[in-house]
């Protein structure tokens, strides 16, 4: 990047000036902190929209019978809820965290490709807008599940599906550009004195995640393009009457889809690996094994996809292979959990809000890991597949996993972002409210699934009534917790006590050497070797 670019970006020739005033600051910005903020607010909005859809779903499922919506609209709700949470909330939130934190953590002044950074963000609102606009089209929004299996998503889908395909393409562009930017930043913009094995774990996990994104998103783009041509140009990739195969769609989808679930959890592992050492006041146990475990999970995530397809009629040899490969993932995942606990062991722990979220992450994510292991056992999956047991599993890993780490990260780094502290008392109330309600919401779903309730149904038999009602009540309570969360964040930004440079006693990392509210342009001079060593997690 030339100086000329930087000049237009900030509107000044002088780097040390602050941001432009007004709305144009946000539209034209190439500053990683501004873009990080934009991503985070976007993701937050999407959580609320996707959450509102979840409320509709839980209201309809509150008791047997159809009270609120018709089945077709119900399917639109589940589909859009899934798509928005995955592509609109979790992924952009992690990119936002990456934008804010990675340059500060590697001692770089900004992302390597700031212009592209601006573009990868600004694609998102358009993609999201296109996706949401399908609700107002004839035939309604996509109603074929976030996994959009053909031929329900091709021959039998509403016309709005072509807009869905376009939106997925845009989201894919945005993710790939974000990933390229992170790889370039970590590899080229890292402080010259910083070796790879000095990098904080959040940077490591994001670097590895970026390679997953670059490998997986083009496959998704391929899948939706084949759908597009099947729908509009007479091809028959997924249509048996034309010599195609609908099961091939599932192979392609899950070849993207399984890496995708790790895209949503690896950065979470990174976040937790920062918070636990801080509040245990003890170095991370096994820094290098954490790095290797992350890399092996990423590799394995490419070779287990068909564990989502045990019932499609795969040959036994295939089922055996995918069962064994899936079980293997439990090993590096276990290594991570053991390392976190070994980090807490004999520490000197305090339980500020970020730590509460991190500890409950370890506990609840591991529950999701256990159910994942059970699902991976191919014969048992016959009874679990496509039931509420699966719904419970992936909400334990995604909500109390991925989302939990995002909330933990928000409380942990908010002082550095805003220069203000949040209200610790209220934040603790919020934590307990959320952690209790989320379990009331999702734990009974294990029972529902085992008792035989299929997923993606708007109405159910009478024996499922009690647990559904409990789950819905938990859902409403969990939904309401976001009102408090919003209040705490806005209150902190507006009225928070000023923060210190290093608000957490045991925190390590280059970001904590910056001003209480990180300067608009940080690390214009790269940090020294001495500083890097002092702040390294691998010491």
């Amino acid at each position: 990047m030339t100086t000329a670019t930087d000049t237009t970006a900030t509107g000044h020739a002088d780097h040390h000036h602050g941001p432009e005033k007004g709305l144009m600051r946000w539209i034209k910005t190439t500053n990683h902190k501004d873009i990080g903020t934009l991503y985070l607010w976007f993701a937050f909005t999407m959580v609320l929209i996707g959450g509102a859809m979840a409320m509709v779903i839980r209201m309809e499922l509150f008791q047997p019978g159809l009270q609120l919506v018709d089945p077709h609209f119900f399917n639109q709700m589940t589909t859009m809820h899934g798509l928005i949470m995955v592509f609109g909330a979790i992924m952009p939130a992690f990119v936002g965290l990456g934008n804010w934190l990675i340059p500060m953590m590697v001692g770089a002044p900004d992302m390597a490709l700031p212009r592209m950074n601006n573009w990868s963000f600004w694609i998102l609102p358009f993609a999201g807008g296109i996706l949401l606009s399908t609700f107002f089209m004839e035939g309604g929004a996509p109603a074929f599940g976030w996994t959009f299996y053909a031929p329900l998503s091709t021959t039998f889908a509403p016309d709005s599906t072509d807009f869905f395909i376009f939106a997925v393409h845009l989201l894919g562009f945005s993710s790939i550009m974000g990933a390229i930017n992170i790889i370039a930043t970590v590899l080229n913009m890292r402080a010259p004195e910083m070796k790879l094995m000095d990098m904080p774990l959040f940077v490591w996990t994001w670097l590895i995640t970026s390679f997953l994104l670059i490998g997986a998103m083009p496959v998704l783009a391929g899948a939706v393009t084949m759908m597009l041509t099947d729908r509009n140009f007479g091809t028959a990739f997924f249509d048996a009457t034309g010599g195609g195969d609908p099961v091939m769609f599932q192979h392609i989808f899950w070849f993207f889809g399984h890496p995708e679930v790790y895209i949503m959890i690896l950065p979470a592992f990174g976040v937790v690996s920062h918070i636990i050492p801080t509040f245990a006041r003890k170095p991370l146990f096994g820094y290098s094994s954490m790095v290797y475990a992350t890399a092996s999970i990423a590799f394995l995530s490419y070779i287990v996809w068909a564990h989502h397809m045990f019932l499609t009629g795969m040959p036994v040899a295939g089922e055996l292979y995918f069962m064994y490969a899936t079980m293997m993932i439990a090993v590096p995942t276990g290594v991570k959990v053991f390392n976190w606990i070994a980090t807490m062991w004999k520490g000197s722990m305090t339980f500020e809000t970020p730590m509460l979220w991190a500890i409950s992450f370890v506990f609840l994510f591991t529950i999701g890991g256990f159910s994942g292991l059970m699902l991976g056992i191919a014969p048992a999956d016959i009874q679990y597949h496509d039931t509420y047991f699966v719904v419970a599993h992936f909400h334990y890993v995604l909500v109390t996993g991925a989302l939990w780490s995002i909330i933990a990260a928000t409380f942990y780094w908010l002082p550095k972002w805003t220069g203000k502290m949040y209200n610790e008392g209220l934040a603790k109330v919020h934590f307990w409210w959320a952690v209790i309600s989320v379990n009331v919401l999702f734990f009974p779903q294990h029972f529902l699934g085992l008792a035989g309730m299929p997923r993606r149904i708007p109405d159910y038999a009478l024996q499922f009534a009690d647990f559904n009602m409990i789950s819905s009540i938990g859902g409403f309570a969990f939904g309401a917790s976001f009102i408090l969360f919003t209040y705490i964040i806005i209150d902190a930004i507006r009225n928070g006590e000023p923060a210190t440079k290093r608000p957490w006693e045991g925190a390590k990392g280059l970001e904590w050497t910056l001003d209480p509210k990180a300067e608009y342009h940080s690390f214009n001079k790269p940090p020294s070797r001495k500083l890097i060593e002092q702040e390294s997690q691998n010491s």
Partner: protein
Amino acid sequence: MKRLTTLLSTLVGLMSTNVFAEYGLNMTEGVTSISRDIYDLHMLIFWICVAIAVLVFGAMFYSVFAHRKSKGAVAAQFHESTKAELLWTVIPIIILVLMAIPASRVLIDLEDTSKADMTIKITGHQWKWQYDYPTEGISFISNLAQSSKDSVNDDSNKPENYLLEVDKHLVLPVDTSIRFLITSNDVIHNWWVPDFGVKQDANPGFINDAWAQIDEIGTYRGQCAELCGKDHGFMPIVVDVVSKADYAKWVTNQQAIAKAAADSANKTWSKSELMAQGESVYNTNCASCHKKDGSGMPPIFPAMKASPVANGAPADHIGLVLHGKGGMPTFKMLGDADLAAVITYERNAFGNTGSVVQPSDVKSAR
């Protein structure tokens, strides 16, 4: 209020032990060797997970309570231990291998469909199941029962087996090794009866198989387990498992009914006969998309009222219903008489003014 009391009693019930059976907390053991093997495997893995959880979470919570600053704990500074890392890599691998052995055995057993005594072909349709007994020459469609359809919007009056009842049960003999051939006519469905341990995708254009030998006489219920569109939640499965003698009787009886239907397709029907028969065929097969009053759900599902097809040439109407078009499924699995009746009904109900169609017209159009 009533719901609230049941809710409270559930919460109380959760604390007592015999609640397991009542509220269905766990997987069913089922009535086939496969379902029992799966159940055992499920319980084995479950208890292994519980044991690991007790150790891991025990250590974590012990640490949370014992190693806190407020208790004066001073942080140790140890980290990195190759020995520990090796230990917690190797031990899980051993446990996983021990889990994989029984899992592989069950998997290989249940995929072996070579030992079947009889075959049933199952075809998924949006949103009903078709059952064919190839050797016996029996074929029928199984729809969600009218009692369930009627009470979807009526919360005060839910029938027993709400959403788990159909108009025609699949009938199978006990103690017989049965092979299921499963396919679909439109989108992907999944035929699942938990008590049999059988759950298999029904893929359009391909045939999957599964097998079961059912040990106990009884009625077993299941549901479609793959999102298949609007009424995915409304296409249950009900199987009556009967003694071999009762099964033989049922087969003879069904064959007689099929013969009578074939005979009636050869006669000429009066318009009122066709309309009466047609209304019931329409309500079971067509009303889910075109609505009972013929208003449809435009733009996806066109109205029958004033439809150009229903008021146009009979050949086009017959052709469309026989072969389907886009989202409109084929109905060639219905008998000639039923098809003639439903087409006549569509052409003359809802204020339409089409002609009468006879079974022989349908027969020659096939």
